[in-house]
């Protein structure tokens, strides 16, 4: 960047509260775009650690990642990071943030990236000094009860997961909440040999993302891995013995005994600072499309603490997008240039596409991906058909016609007026319970708009790319349900069934029929065929194929060559013998 800071102007002061993954991304994006000297950045991070990859904590629990490998890059050189320092108060009038050490940090722009904290259910047994509220401080929990949100949580869970019970049986773990994090934690603890039970209030695991059929398949996958799950289960009480957790009592009286309880019942945005500062809070600090609070445009919020016009997701990707957007916006305001082009590594995504709503379970053997929206029913019903419901054949047939037509006319500018009649998405499914597969895809206008995938395997990567980049899909969306589009033709490999035109020696462009011709001219050895056709004289990889063809020809025509004819096969130039 060629710009130099205007020496006569004071530097723009940016204070960032929070130093998690979204804050780290914001600092990185800002560093890419704003020349040194244009702004002065201070970061207050409550945790004493360098920023780390929180998403991988469940991988550490599973033994698939090393705790020390989570540390993210240092903040850019000229950023002042105060680790282990919490913000206490925002004084908007003075444009100052006060920290818990008595420090005061003046700002021109304040970025709230305080994230979220685990929700602690208001259950008897979990209530510490702060009383029965779901905003209890996770630090006040009984022994053996842990959230999974911080490095310290993770260390404590690992410490608690070791060893066996006094009688030699595996230690028992209960996971409260069968969402994404709950399943990852459960899988990780099971991998460590614990006997794991998930207590989940929904009808099936991951019910926020999965339909009933997918949930049923996932349930079987859990069972395959000896992970028990109690669904539609309401925890009534956490039982505690000698200050340590001993079990969870469910509605109906069932008591699940446990040595370790992991709370994965969702998170709550950390909004205290904003609330005390008189900013609007509604499950997140309310911000506009510009990520600024409406009441005070000098204050922005990004990540899990923010509620944007798109809502609140609790996912990392939207937080990273917000970090990039805010950094770009600030850079533009500060006179920086977009030095790295219009986007970071993810700019291949379609502009305006809601491609940040991908949920992907990271748990060995639990292959679950959900993205976009898939209607629960089977597409638009047709008033004219019988009352049998959305499964009516008439509705489905009409749906096919509409979808093919829109795909065929798609391409450039397909989002025009014709989209006005665009109906509900077309849904295609594959259900294979024994094979532990349930795939549900929603397509509209020749694009993938949603998917719920259990057991998709390598196919998931293709579908995610198609969804996130908005690439066009095959005319028949059912092709999406199998890897490679399901159009593959088995390749003939036996000497007899290979077509004559097939190239055997790629290096020298020698076809099967050329080898047959050489044979017919009396070349019965590999060296002879090589001399006449050059087959096998490149990389040598076709040697066994040529031998196979010779054996096949020999078996069909074992007679000695009747005085091999002298002329050269028409299409070939004789290779000179090695001089």
């Amino acid at each position: 960047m060629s710009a130099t800071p205007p020496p006569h102007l004071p530097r723009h002061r940016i204070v960032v509260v929070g130093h998690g993954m979204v804050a780290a991304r914001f600092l990185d994006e800002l560093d890419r775009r704003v020349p040194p000297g244009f702004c002065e950045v201070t970061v207050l991070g409550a945790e004493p650690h360098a920023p780390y990859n929180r998403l991988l904590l469940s991988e550490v629990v599973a033994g698939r990642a090393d705790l020390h490998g989570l540390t993210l890059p240092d903040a850019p050189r000229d950023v002042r990071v105060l680790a282990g320092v919490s913000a206490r108060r925002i004084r908007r009038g003075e444009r100052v943030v006060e920290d818990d050490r008595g420090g005061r940090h003046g700002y021109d722009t304040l970025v709230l990236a305080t994230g979220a904290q685990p929700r602690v259910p208001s259950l008897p047994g979990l209530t510490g000094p702060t009383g029965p509220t779901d905003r209890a401080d996770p630090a006040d929990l009984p022994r053996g009860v842990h959230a999974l949100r911080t490095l310290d949580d993770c260390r404590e869970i690992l410490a608690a997961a070791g060893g066996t019970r006094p009688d030699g049986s595996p230690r028992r773990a209960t996971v409260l909440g069968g969402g994404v994090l709950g399943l990852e934690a459960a899988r990780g603890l099971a991998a460590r040999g614990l006997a794991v039970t998930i207590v989940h209030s929904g009808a099936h695991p991951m019910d926020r993302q999965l339909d009933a059929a997918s949930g049923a398949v996932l349930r079987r996958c859990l069972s395959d891995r000896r992970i028990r799950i109690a669904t539609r289960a309401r925890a009534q009480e956490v039982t505690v013995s000698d200050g340590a957790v001993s079990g969870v009592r469910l509605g109906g009286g069932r008591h699940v005994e446990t040595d370790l309880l992991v709370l994965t019942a969702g998170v709550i945005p950390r909004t205290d600072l904003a609330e005390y500062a008189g900013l609007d809070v509604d499950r997140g600090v309310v911000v506009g499309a510009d990520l600024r609070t409406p009441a005070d445009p000098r204050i922005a919020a990004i990540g899990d603490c923010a509620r944007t016009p798109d809502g609140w997701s609790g996912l990392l990707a939207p937080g990273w997008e917000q970090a990039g957007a805010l950094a770009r916006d600030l850079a533009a305001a500060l006179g920086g240039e977009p030095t790295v082009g219009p986007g970071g590594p993810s700019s291949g995504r379609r502009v305006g596409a809601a491609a940040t709503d991908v949920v992907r379970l990271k748990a060995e053997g639990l292959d679950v991906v959900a993205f976009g929206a898939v209607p629960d029913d089977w597409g638009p019903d047709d008033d004219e058909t019988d009352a049998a419901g959305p499964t009516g054949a008439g509705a489905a047939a009409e749906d096919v016609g509409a979808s093919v037509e829109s795909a065929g006319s798609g391409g450039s500018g397909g989002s025009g007026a014709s989209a006005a009649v665009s109906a509900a998405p077309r849904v295609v499914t594959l259900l294979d319970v024994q094979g532990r597969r349930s795939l549900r895809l929603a397509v509209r206008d020749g694009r993938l708009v949603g998917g719920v995938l259990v057991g998709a395997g390598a196919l998931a990567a293709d579908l995610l790319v198609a969804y996130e980049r908005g690439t066009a899909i095959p005319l028949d969306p059912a092709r999406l349900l199998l890897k490679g589009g399901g159009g593959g033709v088995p390749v003939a490999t036996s000497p007899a069934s290979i077509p004559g035109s097939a190239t055997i020696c790629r290096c020298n462009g020698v076809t099967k029929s050329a080898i047959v011709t050489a044979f017919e001219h009396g070349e019965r050895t590999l060296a002879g065929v090589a001399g006449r056709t050059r087959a096998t004289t490149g990389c040598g990889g076709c040697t066994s194929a040529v031998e196979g063809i010779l054996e096949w020809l020999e078996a069909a025509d074992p007679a000695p060559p009747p005085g091999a004819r002298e002329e050269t096969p028409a299409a070939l130039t004789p290779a000179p013998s090695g001089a």
Partner: protein
Amino acid sequence: MADTHCPYCALQCAMSVTPTADGVQVAPRDFPTNRGGLCQKGWTSAAVLDVPDRLTTPLVRGGDGELHPVGWDEALDVVVARLRETWARRGRDAVGVFGGGGLTNEKAYTLGKFARVALRTRYVDYNGRFCMSSAAAAGNRAFGLDRGLPFPLTDLGGAQAVLLLGSNLAETMPPCVAHLAGARAAGGLVVVDPRRTPTAALTDDGAGIHLQPLPGTDLQLLLGLTHVVWAEGLADEAYLAERVNGADAVRREVAQWWPERVERETGVPAEQVRAAARLLAAAAPARGGGGAYVLTGRGAEQHAHGTDTVTAAIDLALALGLPGVVGSGYGCLTGQGNGQGGREHGQKADQLPGYRSIEDPAARAHVAGVWGVDPDDLPGAGVPAVAMLDLLGRPDGLAALFVHASNLVVSAPDATAVARRLGELDLLVVCDVVPSETARLADVVLPVTQWAEEDGTMTSLEGRVLRRSRAVAPPSGVRSELEIWHDLAARLDAPGTFSPDPDEVLAELAAASAGGRADYAGVTGERAAAQALYWPVPAPGHDGTPRLFLDRFATPDGRAVMHPVRAAAVADDLREDAELYLVTGRVLAHYQSGAQTRRVRELTRAAPRGHVQIHPLTAHRLGIEEGSDVRVTSARGTSVVPARLSDDIRADTVFMPFHYAGAESANALTNPAVDPISGMPEFKVCAVDVAPADAERPAAPPPSEVFA
């Protein structure tokens, strides 16, 4: 008869060339790299010697706009007169020289010297900028030295695992496949390519893994592989502590690239990322494996972030403890015949012989001493190829250009624009063996000798200095570039000497390179004929250096350097009116711009036309049938080629070979965006629209509608 090496790629297969009554015959010779093998190009190479349109007389464009045969004296006089006019009007820096990676070491060296001493221009660069520059930049910053393979190629044979990134060697250098047999037998071949190429197919049947990423995402994939290495505790910490700087910063950078994120960015399933990383780690010596190699090719390198991609590959190799260890390592597979030697001896804009920097006063003094000129008379650094081509015909740019061993009109990115720029020059001089597409645009064409007609040395992909030997007499009327520079230098009253004798030039090159990074001090024509030596050969009695870095890397403190790199987006990414990625590459039957191979009947029969490879489902959606003509359009141009349907390619990507000219030109479409460090253009990915050729042409979108 003479023992020599193939005229084409950097594998430099050994062959004998024998003139007979029926024409010149070629036969393979046993040599470690090709083991007695030749591909179809090598077998048929003699056909190029006497193609019907072989240039045998100088040509000068007349007042009628046509090229006319003239004598050598007249042609050289024209060149000199017009050069002097240009100098008088515009100064020395209005003249440029564009070289090639097919030139012998002696020619590459003399080309740089001619530019700096006789023309006294800083504007010299070469087509190796299009091939090797990113790998070279990354190798230099990691190891302090760039030799494509810092180990003998045959070492690959003993490895348990080989990671090949963006190399289709089964088509580009087929005899090389034999060296992968060991890794395949161990199930350890990992090929990264958006296409299931013949090389990727070598992983079939348990021989390894094919990772098929979105074009332009090799970098993210590599970050993911390195992530897994560290996340799963597979890094060689003892090696890192002892031999490497900068590991911690890289470890923290890759902490952000867990496999599921990599899957979303690259389209490679997370489990495949893990499996590939584990496979490589299991083969690493620190884990008791049988050795592992990480190798890059143009597919990974020809990007606007190619240097960073290669750096990420090197970082992976270093994390696993591979470089500088016998039986393991990192290497880049050089493409052109003398792509290695061609980048060492002064064709690059910023370099002097021996891989010396032209900005280094000591290097200037040394080389100026060998050349017998004042160091202050040497020009400074020029600009890389793409920037230099952009200067052609501009008022403050270049008014005259010499082109050697390069067919820019076919091989440069955004080739149509390059052709237009060449047309704006006052003087274009092209040395070639045939009337290539570029030669046909020239004001003066000088016919030159080729491979079997000349002596010299070539440095192969493993850094070995090979003897090229004259087997047949050149056609009368044809001269070597060494003779041409000799004659031009004399006419221009240039200081120093310009020997037409290759062995004399080699002796001078050896002296000029002595003490440099690519040190040929102990190489002579005689020694090269007797034994191919691996450089550096720092003294007359020195036996060469087959394996580099065993004790120390070529950095000041002897330690390799890891650099954290950040992922970057494709420069010309998908948008509403260009929904498919185009990747480009080669087919087996052709070499580079095809100027040679498209003149060989057997090869044109095998691959007569360009084509676009397209997935059947994509073709079906677009109404394209096998063999039908397809219009491929990028932001820069349009090509029309027949469709070849294959499920070997991703459904969101199409492929075109770049050997063809005119309407079938792939480089009419490619993006000249360059790597900020190496100047390498982004040949390997851009966004295109694909439609049946007979379909109505879509209206070009107004610029404001171009999506970012």
